[in-house]
């Protein structure tokens, strides 16, 4: 039976839950869904600005986890990292009508330096990241948001903002440096 969505429980790790999902344990998938559906849905909705499309990607992503859980192991890095990267790639592919870009990045290992397995950790990190993004100079924030949430290349960002390509690259680099400092 599916557990009702409720307060998140971080006592069991993602890898342990995934191992149960490989044995077709629906309660384990439910737990993983409860852990990450909010983050995934918010990310995809922000990219597509379409709740219906975000729901579709969210459902497809967790259905893939159900069907192919055995493909996830520690060599793929963090499950939370993978799910965020995969969700974004699917959303960007849909946004930019590219059929293959998402698959490529999803196959890479993702090393997430933060733990997102509990709702408390997620809330703290959301506050932290939003605070960092809010504190970035306008140009840096715009460059990173155009790349991450709109899937634009640095050339496209340079054209959109009217800034030289080098400036755009520097802005993205500086924003990422600030973000990494906060994460470390």
């Amino acid at each position, binding site marked *: 039976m599916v557990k009702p969505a409720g307060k998140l429980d971080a006592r069991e790790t993602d890898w342990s839950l995934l191992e149960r999902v490989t044995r077709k344990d629906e309660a384990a998938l439910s737990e993983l869904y409860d852990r990450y559906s909010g983050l995934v849905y918010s990310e995809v909705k922000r990219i597509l600005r379409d709740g219906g499309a975000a729901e579709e990607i969210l459902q497809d992503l967790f259905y893939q986890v159900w069907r192919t859980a055995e493909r996830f192991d520690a060599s793929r890095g963090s499950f939370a990292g993978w799910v965020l990267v995969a969700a974004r790639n699917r959303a960007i592919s849909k946004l930019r009508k590219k059929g293959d870009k998402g698959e*490529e990045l999803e196959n890479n290992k993702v090393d997430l*330096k933060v733990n997102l397995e509990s709702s408390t950790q997620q809330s703290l990190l959301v506050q932290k990241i939003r605070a960092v993004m809010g504190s970035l100079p306008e140009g840096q924030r715009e460059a990173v948001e155009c790349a*991450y949430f709109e899937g634009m290349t640095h050339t496209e960002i340079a054209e959109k903002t009217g800034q030289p390509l080098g400036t755009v690259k520097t802005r993205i680099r500086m924003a990422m440096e600030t973000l990494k400092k906060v994460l470390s």
Partner: protein
Amino acid sequence: MNESLHIREEDLELYALGALPELEATAVKGHAQGCAQCSAKLAEALGNVAVLALAAEQEAPAARVKEKLFARIAAERAAAATGARDIVGEPKRPRASWWNWVLVPATALLAIFCAALYRENRSLTGELREAQRMAASFERERMHVMGLVNALSAKDTETIRLASTKDGFPGSGAVVRYNKRLGKVIYTADLPELPPGKVYQMWLVPTSGEPPISAGTFTPNGSRPWDTQVPANSDAKAFAVTVEPEGGVPKATGKIILLGGG
């Protein structure tokens, strides 16, 4: 991106962000696939970039999404169970109606069409994999050549000319370019063909008096240079060439036929 042998961190982050144009992205991907160091850094970059998702306004999805997900899973399980029952034998169904005479051939045709599509898809997938493998191979070769160019153009690269010794072949010689800082040895040689089972072996003779360090084996191949790596910062008193058994030897056994250096 092409200043060093590895992809710069900022380019890996741009790739992870999806902000690199297609050509550059292909080059980064090709290199990372064949380079453990860059692959590990790419994993970090993807992790750093992934947290940007948390900058989005947080909102919970409607409960119906989860219900649909589990309904889909339940339907899949039910279908699988029905299939299993069919295999072990269900009671005979009522006689099929006349239009099955149309449906059955149509289904068979559809199955043949699907099989053809499947084969086509497999063939295309194979071609794509081959193209990706070639792209990765070209990228490795490009990085290799770039490394040679960097070493050859470095200001601290020395040129050492090797001349024939009394045991060598009159008129033969070699030119070695050596970058101590990088431990890179690049050389060309003008030497005659050797009998089967024999190769030339280049040696770096250290100033410390330690035994010579092998800088690789080679056979005459026209004007193409050979290159090899020795431990960085090895002080070279001289370079020498001997004739050794095929595959080379850890310690020189043949007479020195070419010699050059301090």
